[in-house]
């Protein structure tokens, strides 16, 4: 799980801690996060769909995704998959793309991600071409969207696996 230092810092930043729950506005108080292009996506990832607040346990559960993967862990089938396994991490990243949680990254969702990341410095046509190309590279079953399996198989993600394994905190 997250180290104790991290939790204390988060506690310092949120004044609602006594109540035991966090709201999106508390996250908005973190200045750097508001400058982050995908800041609001990250914030919304903490909140389960429909809920307005997040309690401590869920908060920590989300952050647990970011612990380094222990590849040498032996798992029997009974134990539930740990939060920091590679698949769960990939799933977390995938869900950040897939805002409507339908299990696929549609072209529109990809365009939205690109738009936020490129911060309106590009023309619409360039965005379209990039999204087109990305989907072409990844889309194996020709449904014009990227499912989770296709996401995992994409050549690029293969190389990022090392990066994902290295997530700390």
């Amino acid at each position, binding site marked *: 799980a997250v180290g104790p230092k991290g939790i204390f810092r988060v506690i310092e930043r949120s004044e609602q801690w006594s109540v035991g729950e966090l709201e999106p506005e508390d996250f908005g108080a973190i200045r750097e996060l508001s400058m*982050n292009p995908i800041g609001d996506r990250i914030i919304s990832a903490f909140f389960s769909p429909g809920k307005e607040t997040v309690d401590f346990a869920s908060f920590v559960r989300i952050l647990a995704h970011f612990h380094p993967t222990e590849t040498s862990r032996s798992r029997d089938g009974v134990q539930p998959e740990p939060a920091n396994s590679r698949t769960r991490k990939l799933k977390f990243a995938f869900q950040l793309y897939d805002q409507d949680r339908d299990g696929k990254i549609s072209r529109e969702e990809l365009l939205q991600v690109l738009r936020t990341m490129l911060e309106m410095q590009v023309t619409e046509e360039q965005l379209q071409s990039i999204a087109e190309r990305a989907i072409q590279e990844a889309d194996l079953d020709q449904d014009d969207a990227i499912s989770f399996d296709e996401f995992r198989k994409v050549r690029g993600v293969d190389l990022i696996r090392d990066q994902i394994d290295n997530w700390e905190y």
Partner: protein
Amino acid sequence: MTAACLQHKSPFLRLARRSSFLPLTGLMCVLLLVFVSVASASRDVVSENNETWRGPAGETRGDSHNQTNSTAHKKAFPVLSFNYEHVRKPFEISLWILLALLMKLGFHIIPGVQNIVPESCLLIGVGLLVGGIIKAIGEEAPVLDTKLFFLYLLPPIILDAGYFLPIRPFTENMGTILVFAVVGTLWNTFFIGGMIYGVCRIEGGQLASVDPLSCLLFGTIVSAVDPVAVLAVFEEIHINELLHILVFGESLLNDAVTVVLYHLFEEFTHAGTVTVVDAILGVVCFFVVSLGGILVGAIYGILGAFTSRFTSHTRVIEPLFVFLYSYMAYLSAEVFHLSGIMSLIACGVVMRPYVEANVSHKSYTTIKYFLKMWSSVSETLIFIFLGVSTVAGPHAWNWTFVIVTVVLCLVSRVLGVIGLTYIINKFRIVKLTKKDQFIVAYGGLRGAIAFSLGFLLTNSEMKNMFLTAIITVIFFTVIVQGMTIRPLVDLLAVKKKKESKRSINEEIHTQFLDHLLTGIEDICGHYGHHHWKDKLNRFNKAYVKKWLIAGERSTEPQLISFYNKMEMKQAMMLVESGSTAQLPTIVSSVSMQNIKPRGPARQRAIPSISKSREQEIRKILRANLQKTRQRLRSYSRHDLMIDPFEDNVSEVRFRRQRVEMERRVSLTATVILFMSVRALEIQDSLCS
């Protein structure tokens, strides 16, 4: 590089395969002999006496005498004269380089050799051979001049390495690399120096006169991992990126340590006594040398980037700016006894992103290939000279000393790596496994830098002994370790480099994940790696790019420039190789509906085509039609090539792209597509 040569399937190669090796080896022998004769001629001391002249140079003397004496007797006008003296020096230099490169060529043509023996070993072997022949003749062989090495041969290799340094793995592993470079080299120096001194004390006899400072100096020279040797060997084994950057980064960064220690110990041997103040000054000196070197490099890098902003009208000289600024950085650092290597690396690293955004595509290619070319030539020359100098130099062989040195080098390297990895792994997330440690330890090769530094030593009776030991260590590491590292890598099943091209997905996801991790770090309040990287990127985007990149490219986000580069690469591939280009797109059955309805709309007067012509067209199209389908699928209306069948104005959209590229590509593409449509029309008309 090596594989590409073999695949070229030149007629020479086919000939070589069919016939025996004899003609090739014969050719090599002839080359060797010419090499040797030139070398011997070049060593002749230019003197006034005629007796010392030999070989082709001898004739010129007589001739020039004749010419100077011509005023006395009236001779006939010389129609053809021989004046070698005039061009002697450049002629010999060029001939040396040419023959060295022909050797290198020869190695690649002889099949099978390079799989067993790395190129560096072969070149050293050639050098030994040449040196041996020269010595047998009785001439004095040329030695690897230290000034020549440090000022002319080393910089191109380092610049090539620095300019193309993979930044991401380098910065990610910076801590590890620094620990290996600084602490590892220090450990090696003191361990080897100390143990050698102890052994000398114990042995007595000839070795008793060796004092501790000389031993430490010797330890410094022999303990530094050499970038040239590492590059030469590692390039052929295609090891995974992490290990490559660890060993290579270490070899680059330990230059600062080596420079400081070398000058330190040399001063001390002259001064005689060492005080604590001197030791502290030494530590300060280290920081000055390394940080100063980096600063000098960065300044020149920024200057170079700034200059490249204004070169849009004089594209031809753009590459020269890159080379000259970098070389100046190296020389300026050497003036102040700072670390020239680090300065060169810093210059290349700082300059590269801005220069690449500013220069034309042709200049970019020129820079790339010139750097590769110069570094290749330098490397070849260095290894050959190493072999020649070995035969030439004065030697003092002392069995104990040499054997102890070699053993100690190995032992200290292994111990150092294991010990440091144990400490480093506590801070690393991706731990270094035992296999990784072995490769890092085994890859610590010594090379020509050690030799040159040894040559710089002031002449003493120990210098020859030291030099012999250094040469032995170099030979051992380069030949034995260099030859065996490839089978060992295969044996241990070490991860090799993944030869995959960067895809647009990878780029998008990498950036996305960077943002994600930065965000998470911000939530936790943890100012980690990503936080600072993000800050640097913002600073770069907000201030630096505006100053150093010309025009509107300065606001272009990284993803867009990457995408443009990809598209351009793909378009160029298509233009260059008609039917053999591999497109990463999916082959899907494209409906010809895309063109069919347009066809009749573009009714042109189809001239009657003869049967043979039509066959020709059909054949070409059959070969290319598959390509055409793919092209139509991937090159939709958003793409680089102006699709002549679209009435949407794609030209307007891509005005920001490079115009000449666009024109060229679109022209060829238009021709091909037009041909295909015409052929289809012909087919239609023939069928109906």
